[in-house]
């Protein structure tokens, strides 16, 4: 099975090509793209958030068959060393991550929000970023989203 990930056509190994397999495990075990994390397996925590055709999607409950022909973006494709995403820069400026485990999902949720809404309110952020963080990075996540949004507006 082929999957379009971060702008590239990638061939999944046969063992990771079952249409019922959640995208999360195809990425992690099939393609070794381990930046997308497993947190709960029931779409409750958001650690596995990726973009499917630009939509923030919890990949732990998204079967591969729902990804056919769609553009998948993972944390590895959010920016590049030369062109980091504005959120990645804001994340570093605010020193957001602590343990860092939930942060890929946080960033992907925030990036999907900013793609649609260049000037999110607190309520917009609350609604779009329902990801769980056990280390309590929420105040800095919020500040970094606003900082990145400020930069995008310019």
């Amino acid at each position, binding site marked *: 099975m082929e999957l379009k990930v971060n702008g590239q056509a990638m061939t999944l190994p046969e*063992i*990771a090509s*079952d249409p019922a*397999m*959640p995208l999360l*495990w195809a990425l*992690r*075990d*099939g393609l*070794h*793209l*381990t*930046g*997308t*994390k*497993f*947190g*709960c*397996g*029931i779409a*409750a*925590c958001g*650690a596995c958030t990726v973009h499917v055709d630009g939509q923030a999607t919890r990949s732990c409950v998204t079967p591969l068959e729902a990804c056919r022909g769609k553009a998948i973006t*993972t*944390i*590895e494709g*959010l*920016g590049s*060393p030369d062109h*980091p995403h504005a959120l*990645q820069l804001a*994340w*570093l400026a605010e*020193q*957001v*991550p*602590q*343990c*860092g*485990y*939930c*942060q*890929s999902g946080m960033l992907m949720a925030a990036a999907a929000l900013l793609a649609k809404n260049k000037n999110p309110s607190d309520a917009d*952020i*609350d*609604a779009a*970023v*329902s*990801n*769980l*963080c*056990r*280390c*309590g*990075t*929420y*105040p*800095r*996540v*919020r500040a970094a989203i606003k900082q990145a949004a400020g930069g995008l507006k310019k």
Partner: protein
Amino acid sequence: MKRRTLLLTGTGALGALVVGWGVMPPRSRLGDAHTLPAVDGQVGLNGWIKIASDGAVVLAMNRSEMGQGVHTALSQLVAEELDVPLGRVRLTEAGHDAIYGNIAAFLGNVPFGPRDHERAVFKFSTWITAKVGRELGLNLTGGSSSTADAWDTLRLAAATARAQLLGAAALKHRLPVDELTVKDGTIHHASGPLSHYGELAAQAALTPPGQVRLKDSKQWTQIGRALPRADLAAKVDGSARFGLDVRQQGQVFAAIRHCPMLGGGIGPANVDAVRARPGVLRVVALGPIAGSTAAYAVVARTTWHAREAAKALEVDWQPPPNGRLDSKAILAALEAEARRAHAAGDGFAFLKQGDAAGALAGAATKLEAVYSAPHLAHVTMEPMNCTAQVLDGHVTVWAPTQVPGFARDVAARVAGVAPDKVTVHVTYLGGGFGRRLDIDFVGQAVRVALEMGGLPVQLVWSREEDMTHDFYRPAEVSVLQAGLDAAGKPVALAITGASDAIVPRWAERVLPGLAPTLDLLNRNAFPDGRAPAALLARGDAPDKTASEGLFELPYAIPNARVAHRPTHSGVPVGMWRGVGHSHHAFFKEGFIDELAHAAKADPVAFRFELLEGLPRHQAVLKRAAEAAGWGQPLPEGLARGVAVHESFGSVVAQVVEVTKQDGRPRVKRVVCAIDCGIVVNPGIVVRQMESCIVFGLTAALWGRIDIVDGEVQQKSFPDHPLMTMAQCPVIETHLLPGDGPPTGVGEPGLPPVAPALANAWFALTGDRKRKLPLMSQ
């Protein structure tokens, strides 16, 4: 006093035993040029520092990065003394030499309060504990101790290396050493730059350091600065490697199903049917390992295939031999035991001053309250996992662990090899909070790997297994009594708590070889036979860790008895962020608030007066109160509460602002002030306070684990809410840097938040909360 002395005698005995085992060079934790393996042309100068050929400093990192910023803070100490930018410090895994042990974590267990520090018994016990800790060399990241432990050791190691490099430059360039300076890892003379560290390392290794001096604080250019964390770039682009991200050639994956009943067993299962499922390679029966409940593991070619197959397991689960646990019954038994012990003057009195019973009887106003706290789970975002490979008699383990030495030991025990046949790689930890001080998941992974013919296998617990098979923060019930005189001044305090001992249970799991010594200690601790025979038989010593946060009473109350009954309920209990402080601050600061109310005093002023003689406590309380606008009017529907608590050497005060939303507390703002001694990296400290507050609010509002018929009822996030972005208050932190050595940061921000919230709720509603979590009532 007598009992404390006896405890120390016990520790002394242990020390004598251990000193006999190892032949360590006296006092030194410096190691030597050969402690670290020389690779890629790196030159070892001591057990901590190597110099790479390009002049970079390679630091042996002995602590686990779990979000607390320790890799950066410790690198900062070394960068400071070696005069290199932080970016020139590279990390290498420290290995298992005893110099990498954690002495500060041991010192954190010396059972004294803030008013004891000048006493000879405190000084002696600190000295002997440090000696014992040095000899044991147990490496753990926990107890908010990493920076305190590294403070002298790493600065000395770096300063010694610097002195050797300077000496080598003096020899090479034939210049007096006192005419040389260091800038960014290059030795300079008035005439210009001479050589960088990489060019001098080989000579430096042969050059004695002479007299080594640490920098004066006035010369610091890096300590005290909010330098960015070194690990964060990798944590925003997905490249950071956590335990679950280990990928080795030929790696396979395993899922696990424990017996749902804690401590239960496994019977026959539909193993053949499960093995026939797609992608499945093996089904492995796992007995209890390092405290785990028995389980089946299913190995498959991907995590998904393993998870799906594990779900299809049908097992005849066996009930636990000692009966099915029930947390409601345990809480009722703890309350009965706390009340009985309180009435009988029973329990181990860590604090006994004056005549509490007599003063209580004569007090003008008497208060009595029962406080309680439930079992709690750690709920790290990265579920328990470990990758292991057993190949040609050698075991390799990749583990997100807080205890690499214990991980090595359990791997060796399970595989039946000597510890030196085990290599442990510590990955980043997706949260620790004390859960990863246990090594059950490491032992399980090695056990499974033994079946896999040399293939590396990654064992991944589901969220449900993680939540239902934790080592939980013990539940506790305490009876608190106080007496005020006619002027409203507290004259008597008597507290008796009952909860499971923590350290003995943990030690049985991680240090089974030390169990006989612990038994000996237990017996020494109760030489007068005051411990009931039943407790002694079960090996429950007075447990400082389960008692801490109450007996180190900061308030000047002349007659006080603070006692604890260590119980053994059978619930697997472990170290949870803040440990005993996590709930005892709620008991102590809630009850003090009750006393202030009874005395018709302002809660801040009441505390401030009782903290006379403890300037750190008074200063943080004052700062938090001022910054929060204490005493100034709030809009209708908002109220403030305060708490101050010392833990892990640091003192933290917090003021919480709360409102009522749908009849329930909604936290709007938390103002925090901390004195944690010298601040190495203020940015990290501030963020740890935020972390502690959010973690503590989750526990205060919703945190609970209920066990019914032996099974934990909370299975995943829908049953076990964590605070979300939308619920998170505004948090404001103020640092009051002290001039003493650094003290704890990773935990001390947590204990005060629950009582500050409950006290605010009382101020708002008149409803006094004495039971956690607040939302359950």
